[in-house]
């Protein structure tokens, strides 16, 4: 402790300086790669490959985006993923919200047992093969329903929602509602749901992101080319490097040349495929810390 005379001590000033420096560093480390992808996607492919594009876009070119929009594989994947995300999220919400409400009612005796029944699946599961055989036997594989019905309830989301209902819906509301002869159905639909915008937005976002980004389900269960979700198309293009249908020429000067253009397409496709999820998120962000997480982990 150096001095208490003028508010801040030397060590506290030093402390603040270090905090802001570290925060600035973290900001750059996280933001720069994202920013780079954005400027690289609208810059000339050669300049990007030579490392001339660092802070501002150079030789503005929409070549990558043009190729992305010409590629029908991406359109099919995009369409499918939109359908799967809408159907899947809707179904998941319809299952999760009422179940969370039931489990939040303290007078519901079975709730402890049911909660255990749900939470157990977070730590123990049948494994890939038994699940695969089941889904095959049910005839869900290679259909759009495999994206919607199995695993529609995310237990973590269910617990978060239940905690929200427990902590944020005033007890007096239920008392007065029941005195007026209100049933659980009515209470849930006309009082609980309208009061729960925060949790509904957050859980919906979690489901949307999970469904939009789901690669595994498509990899395991889908064989029909017309049912392929976006993430599988992305794998082919971004990682397996099948950027152009003709393929990228490998080796030699011509190969390197083609790869530059392939990279331009990749930058564009990263933006196009990620944007829909990213644009929603800032609107929901304000709810993230507000009680949504707290007390949520303890089942």
């Amino acid at each position, binding site marked *: 402790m150096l001095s208490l005379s003028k508010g801040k001590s030397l*060590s506290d000033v030093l*402390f*603040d300086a270090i905090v802001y420096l570290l*925060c600035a560093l*973290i900001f750059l480390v*996280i933001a720069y*790669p994202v920013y780079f992808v954005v400027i*690289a996607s609208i810059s000339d492919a050669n300049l990007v490959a030579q490392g001339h594009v660092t802070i501002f876009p150079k030789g503005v070119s929409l070549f990558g985006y043009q190729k992305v929009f010409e590629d029908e594989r991406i359109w099919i994947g995009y369409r499918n993923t939109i359908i799967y995300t809408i159907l899947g999220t809707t179904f998941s919400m*319809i*299952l999760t919200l*009422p*179940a969370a409400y*039931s*489990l939040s*009612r*303290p*007078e*519901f*005796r*079975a709730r402890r047992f049911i909660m255990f029944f*749900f939470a157990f699946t977070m*730590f*123990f599961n*049948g*494994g*890939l*093969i*038994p*699940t*695969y*055989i089941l889904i095959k036997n049910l005839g869900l594989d290679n259909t759009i329903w495999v994206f919607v*019905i199995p*695993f529609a*309830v995310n237990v973590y989301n269910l617990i978060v929602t239940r905690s929200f209902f427990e902590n944020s819906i005033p*007890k*007096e509301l239920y008392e007065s509602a029941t005195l007026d002869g209100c049933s*659980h159905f009515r209470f*849930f639909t006309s009082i609980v749901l309208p009061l729960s915008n925060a949790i509904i937005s957050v859980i919906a976002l979690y489901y949307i*992101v999970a469904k939009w*980004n789901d*690669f*595994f389900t498509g990899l395991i269960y889908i064989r029909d080319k017309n049912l392929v979700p976006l*993430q599988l198309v*992305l*794998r082919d293009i*971004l*990682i397996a490097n099948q950027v152009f249908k003709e393929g990228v020429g490998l080796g030699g000067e011509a190969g*390197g040349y083609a*790869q530059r253009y392939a990279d331009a397409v*990749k*930058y564009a496709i*990263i933006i196009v*495929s*990620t944007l829909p999820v990213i644009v929603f998120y800032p609107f929901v*962000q304000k709810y*993230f*810390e507000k009680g*949504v997480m707290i007390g949520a*982990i303890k*089942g």
Partner: protein
Amino acid sequence: MFLRLIENGGYITLVNYDINKTGKKVTISTDKIKRIFLEFKRDYQLWIMVLPAIIVIFIFNYIPMYGIQLAFREYDFTKGIVGGKWVGLKYFKQFINSYQFERLIRNTLAISISSILVGFPAPIILALLFNQVKNQRYKKVLQTTVYLPHFISTTVMVGLLVVLLSPNTGIIGKMLRLFGLDDVNLLGNTSTFVPVYVLSDVWQHAGWGSIIYLAALSSVDPQLYDAAKVDGASKWRMIWHIDIPSLVPTMVILFILSMGGILSTGFEKVYLMQNGLNITVSEVIATYVYKIGLLSNQYSYSAAIGFFNTVINFSFLVITNWVARKIGNISLF
């Protein structure tokens, strides 16, 4: 015998009780059936609301558990899961004796332990740091930015690594050249696979992971800081003596959860990062189960490896939970 509605902590509850000679309430077991019936009548709407979720979880999470017996049977494509001949531990022995066993365990542990070592403290440090930023606008911008990568899909994340780390055309690959790492293909190298995997995971998820710690920090009683200030504590000491202790319960719970995944690595990311050059360090149990089971159709063998994995994970979870309860009186269950 009385049956009536009483108010119980703000809720109207149906209670069936008798008053014995000492005046204490005693519930009557002979009326159990009646009570269950009345309760069901009262709660039937709650049952209807929770039932669809129960059904879906039962079908897709519990029925596969019944299918685990496949690991102990010779799978017969014509007879289904329970039709095959019982072979006991044959497939478990086959796995433990296979030349792949040691490598798979080593690779899986290398990835998951480094992920825990680096990935577990990272969100805590971020939260402690962000908590010191008093300017609300900066804080908001900072948080919005660090949460963002969490929403990128695994496929895009690995795609990003491919383009950014490329030694010829990638920006990070080029930067590394300046540091003398000439022409190192970071994704096709056995010694860089784990660091790239772990660090990119921290880059993507540490910010998001800090939310839960920030929430815990925001609930610290401000009087504690005031009292510390009066005692002349510096900010370092306040972090050490107030912030960190207030995070301990959250840390313990999250640590138990991460130990429950000690033999699990995210299938998607490892699978997508695999290539011929790094396969000796990148083949893990999850990817092997997929390849053996679905690409080579050895269902029973694959189910056995999967079950082995689940049992080890579950044991670690239970043991860590037990230790945490003994030592710190904090536990998940």
